């Protein structure tokens, strides 16, 4: 991990995290703007690191697990930045940035080396992979937001908000942010899946080959669409919806960590 882009990205993400935490503890204009600025800088350098990695191994970053993890971290940070801009809330940053930082670190720890090209190629494949990873990033954010919601809800009901509790977004905003993330995730996943089915058809002449990764992805979509509907019902409104959102994320982890690398023929990186 000697790539200057990687090191610089790491520094900026770490600085952004520190400033987000500072801003949560003692809100200040300097810390808040600084955190966002560092995140934007980190995203730019991370993009350059991804490009550099691609040049080194002559492959797009998502052709291998570590590359896809790095892309996941980049999309996670970018999605969070979008949500921060829309909802004008920085208090979730201290909880998203650690994930970005850890995933980025893990993805760049091993040296990049030439890999076997995957069977699918071209813009549609890039579109498919990017959208699916974007969906995972969005679901990861909804997972973090749901945890914050449950914690905040517990504090509010228990009359123990504490100093930090006053700086988290209101429950209603957390709920809307979660729903926005899930909607982004579902839309990306749905379109990404369609692109995937087209790719499978090109390669195998059929749209359905029963790949475990595809089944897991369909399950994820069903789970999150259920969340969207259930969270608007009398039974699911509030903390129950957040609990479901947290539960759903385990499908994502299963798909990303187990179904893809170990059960699928098409989606493994080796």
């Amino acid at each position: 991990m000697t790539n200057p882009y990687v090191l610089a990205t790491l520094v900026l993400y770490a600085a952004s995290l520190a400033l987000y935490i500072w801003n949560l503890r003692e809100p200040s204009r300097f810390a808040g703007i600084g955190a966002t600025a560092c995140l934007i800088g980190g995203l730019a350098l991370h993009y350059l690191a991804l490009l550099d990695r691609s040049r080194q191994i002559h492959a797009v970053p998502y052709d291998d697990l570590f590359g896809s993890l790095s892309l996941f971290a980049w999309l996670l940070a970018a999605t969070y930045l979008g949500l921060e801009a829309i909802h004008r809330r920085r208090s979730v940053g201290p909880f998203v940035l650690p994930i970005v930082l850890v995933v980025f670190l893990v993805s760049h720890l091993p040296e990049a080396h030439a890999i076997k090209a995957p069977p699918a190629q071209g813009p549609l494949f890039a579109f498919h992979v990017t959208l699916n990873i974007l969906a995972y990033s969005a679901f990861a954010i909804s997972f973090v937001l749901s945890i914050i919601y449950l914690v905040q809800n517990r504090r509010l009901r228990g009359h123990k908000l504490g100093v930090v509790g006053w700086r988290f977004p209101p429950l209603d905003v957390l709920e809307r942010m979660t729903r926005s993330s899930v909607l982004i995730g579902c839309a990306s996943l749905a379109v990404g899946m369609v692109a995937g089915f087209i790719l499978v058809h090109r390669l195998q002449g059929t749209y359905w080959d029963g790949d475990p990764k595809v089944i897991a992805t369909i399950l994820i979509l069903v789970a999150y669409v259920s969340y969207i509907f259930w969270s608007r019902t009398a039974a699911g409104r509030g903390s129950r919806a957040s609990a479901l959102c947290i539960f759903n994320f385990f499908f994502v982890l299963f798909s990303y960590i187990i179904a893809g690398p170990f059960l699928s023929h098409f989606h493994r990186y080796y």
Partner: protein
Amino acid sequence: MEIVLIGLSHRTATVELRERVAFSPEQAREAAEQLRSRGILEETMVLSTCNRSELYGVPGELSADSAGAVELFLASYHQMSPSELGGSLYRHRDSHAVRHLFRVAAGLDSLLLGEAEILGQVRDAYQIALDHGETGPVLNRMFQGALEVGKRVRSETEIGTRPVSVAFAGVKLAERIFGKLNNHRALIIGAGATSEQVVRHLSDRGIKQLRVLNRTAEHAVDLASRFGGEVVAWENLTASLEWPDLIVTSVSSNEPVLTRAMIERAMAARGNRAVLMIDLGVPRNVAADAGNIYNTYLYNVDDLSEIVEQNKKARQAEIPRVESIIEEQIQKFLHWQAGATTGAVLGELRAKLAGEREAFLKERLASMQNLSEADRAQVSAMLEDFMNRVVLDPAERLRGVPELRRKLQNLEALRDLFHLHREKP
């Protein structure tokens, strides 16, 4: 001129205990009257708000251990044993009692630091006591001083510039749950001063819709009309609970106005959409177990202490300035008090000397038959002039120069020196 204060507040007692020792306006008048008729206090003043019950008084000349007697009275009035109150009561005397009242009026002792509501409550309580002749010169001066402190603190410092009150704390809490309130609806149960505060803050924060419900419909109409709200008949209380996201209660009732069953029905009807209930009533208006219902948030006045801490931090910087005003006003009161005491002593001294002079003249002039009436009058005038030069002129200077009084420290010595009867000014 001893001053005693016995009381308990949110700092020393739980909401349950405060509920038990709260005074309604009628009870406050009755208690004050009893304290005076029993000879425990000569001047009395009962200050009872959501967060405190305090008895201020000036004991009678003959009442020994007046503070103890007031404590016993407080316990017996509320049909409690003294031990139930003991640990929760605070007791202050003289300048400490004055300082406490001034801090209360300044909002330094409030649940919400610097809140303005308490000043109105002090003013109202004082006005009632004054109208019923329960106060005297000492408490009048003390409470007028407290009102002056309150006014100065709010005009000369920033502690009162921000709209902070118990009501505001509730509104801020609503924003923790709902975010901006411009898409939410509020139901206000009760149309008193506290409710008005809530409505004012909700209106400032752009609440979408507002409904007011009160036992006395006229008050609800008055409040709703001033803030563009609607009025709901008290009979429709249960049905009206389905509608709001925020329910604020502040009514006088010994039983909960909103029961768990009522809230459960409302939640079912509104599809479990979140509801925040701010219970500002003491005794509490919402059944405590209603807060356990899914997606409801229930806060009573004690729970708002969380918000107090937040506001305190933001206003800490202003405290020294407020304390300085309080100190200034305390000195002013003590100066008046000392002057009043001096005046009383001097009055007694003047009366004593006049009597002595008359007796002296009667005794001595009896053997001087050759003196004409004009001569006798001249001797009497000379004697009076002499007494004024020797005793009364310095005494008058004593009244006008605080430094002299400080040097003398204890005017009781003057009383003893001249065998003066102790009388209240």
